[in-house]
């Protein structure tokens, strides 16, 4: 089956954002702009299925980079692997055990235009996740027919419909769950505003995590360069992405 990847464009904006730098993840400091992994999550919150994969191509920065320093109460504990937590647990002195006050350096008043390819994964290439679909029926004709109707165009149309209507699985957010954002499906680029006029080397930036080895996922980085407000995101497979 012949098909092509279609590029979609979304505009997202929010009052605050925090694309936490890994080295400053305790006292959070954000990256200057949205990272490809955060952008991917925005697309996935609108539409995702095991049959598709999002690949970020380009990021337009629409507003100048502004900072704000805030103290927030966060939790010093993770939910997973220890059978749940009660966040207001107290220690023997009566203090709250899990709560910690930490400083964060956040981005303020951000807007981006995100371009991403919706890549169709043929049924044979799909990895079986833990949430694989219902077992296929035993009947021979059914086995043969299953997934025959699959066609990338169907997924493209699904995304387009959903994005245009503003539907999403969960509210998209900018880096941290508490910084939810609004999004808009961009159809006609000629009517859109220009990105900011700023050219800067943003240094190494987190691209995404490489889940090739699910036991030990490793981070991948790339050198982000902003040219007149436009950041071209290299191909995941390319040399520029350090995995």
């Amino acid at each position, binding site marked *: 089956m012949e098909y092509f990847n279609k590029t979609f464009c979304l505009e997202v904006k929010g009052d605050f954002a925090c694309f936490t730098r890994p*080295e400053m993840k305790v*006292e959070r*400091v954000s990256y200057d702009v949205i990272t490809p992994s955060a952008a991917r999550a925005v697309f996935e919150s609108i539409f995702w299925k095991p049959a598709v994969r999002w690949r970020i191509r380009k990021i337009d920065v629409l507003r100048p980079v502004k900072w704000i*320093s805030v103290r927030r109460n966060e939790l*010093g*504990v993770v939910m997973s692997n220890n059978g749940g937590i009660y966040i207001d647990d107290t220690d023997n002195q009566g203090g709250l055990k899990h709560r910690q006050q930490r*400083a964060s350096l956040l981005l303020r008043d951000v807007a981006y235009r995100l371009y991403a390819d919706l890549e169709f994964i043929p049924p044979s290439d799909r990895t079986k996740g833990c949430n694989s679909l219902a077992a296929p029926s035993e009947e021979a004709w059914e086995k043969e027919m299953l997934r025959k109707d699959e066609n990338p165009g169907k997924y493209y149309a699904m995304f387009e419909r959903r994005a245009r209507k503003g539907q999403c699985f969960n509210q998209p957010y900018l880096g941290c769950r508490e910084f939810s954002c609004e999004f808009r499906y961009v159809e006609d680029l000629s009517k859109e505003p220009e990105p900011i006029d700023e050219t800067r080397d*943003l240094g*190494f930036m987190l691209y995404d995590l490489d889940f090739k080895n699910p036991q030990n996922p490793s*981070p991948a980085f790339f050198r982000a360069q902003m040219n007149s407000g436009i950041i071209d995101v290299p191909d995941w497979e390319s040399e520029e992405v350090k995995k």
Partner: protein
Amino acid sequence: MILQALYNYYRQKAADPESGIAPPGFEWKEIPFIIVIDMDGNFIALEDTRKGKTKRGETYLLPKSTGRSGSNSWMTSNLLWDHYGYVLGIPRGDDAKSNEMAKKQLLTFVQNVESLKEHLGKNDAVAAVALFYEKEEYKKVSSSDKWHECMKIIGCNMSFRIKDDAFLIPCSKSVRLYVESLDLNQSDEEGLGICLLTGLYGPIARIHGDTPINKDSKKIVSFQKNSGYDSYGKEQAYNAPISKIAEFAYTTALNGLLSRNSKNKVQIGDITIVFWAERQSELEQLFPSFFCFPKTDDSEVDARAVAALNDNACLSVTDGESERFCVLGLGPNAARISVRFWHESTDGEIAAAIRQHFEDIDIVRSTYDTGHYSVYWLLSAMATENKIDNIPSNMASQILRAIVTGEAYPLTMLHQTVLRIRAMRNVRRMQAGILKAYLNRSSRIHSFSEKEAISMSLDETNMRTGYLLGRLFAVLEKIQEQGVPGIHSTIRDHYYASASSTPSTVFPQLLKMKNYHLERIKVRGLRRKYENLLSEIMNRIQPDMPSGLVMEEQARFALGYYHQKSDFNKSLIIQ
């Protein structure tokens, strides 16, 4: 961003042989006490290197300290220098636990010396140190007459010197060559990955070096285990892969900037600001003077720096030949260092922003008023008892950011100042300057229609109710002063707070009192003058006096009061 810039700064310094920055594997460290031994390992004396009033020890370029934390920290010791727990096996506390710990630490240290001796051979000074331990000479140190001085410093660092040698044993050539031969890329811990600063594959630092900004806050990058900072099964700094070389470079650069004699550091309240230019920049020399507490021997330094900033043509915004300039504000948070603000720009832009700030806060002052402008005074004018520790946390960093970037000042700055003025029942020059700066800048940035510009001195065309009421209040006070000369407490002492917040409840009473005061003024011309002034102001105030003033109007009240008052003392002011 931050670490990247620090990494670049280190590389640029390392390329310059005169910068004196520590090469890979080394670190500048203060050693207050030195154990002097002879070549046979006999203990000779304990030497105190501390000098001067501040009692600070000499600093030496020593093999870099190794990060240690947790219950197994005794297993790592530094090379030929450390605190007395390691060097002499003397515990910090009296309890059995620290006794036990010190014994283990000493063992590690001696083992380290032994292995170094094997590497360097018998004739070296290191062999003398090994003998020092073999002969159990180290037990003699605590009976030395200087020992109680040494014990006063908790965890006092010490090292060794051979009698008649000028340098320390860890500074000797053979030790230096040995340390240089150790490759930073060698790693006995597993943990390889892509470094997020250099993009190269190599060994990753598990814990990062200390970069203390005060005695409790030591690390800028640190992750506690099992406290919600582990992700994807990666603990500690494996969460954020930074290669050992990059980790060394950024910590060394930051420690250099933070060091005691650093010219690239300013401390204001709980915030430590470090700044650096990519290459030489005039701004780098001027920068601390804008913020600092003036030194006693040179009180005019901030005023001179402001003047220099205005005169210096190099610092005007020019395209092309400008230097990158970084400003980093660090604050303590528990044991960690948190980044309060970060700004990277060209020196010209930063100079322009600072210039704009000083233009904004500038206001008429009397000839008696010292011309201090530095941010220290600005913050002190907002603080209870003028103590800079009393300002709300985070405000200082927000103000500093506003100064460096040219953004709007925080609203809390206005509130805090107005509250201070109300509590003190007086408006001082710096406070008036702060209010003017806030109002002017926020109208420049935020308001779309009417741009407000509060002038340096009395503006008779200003029609804002708050401003007019402030002027009115100043006139009423002046009349009282003239009518009842030598009065101890004026209406300002009794009514400032209520007049500036709820004018309609106070002013009728004040205007009634004014009549009595006016009658007492004997000079007719003077009386006429005040009456004219009063009616001129009163005519502009809307017939209904507002019952309450919002904070911004209260700020205008203070400004009107300050302007009018300084206008009365025209002969005493500097325009």
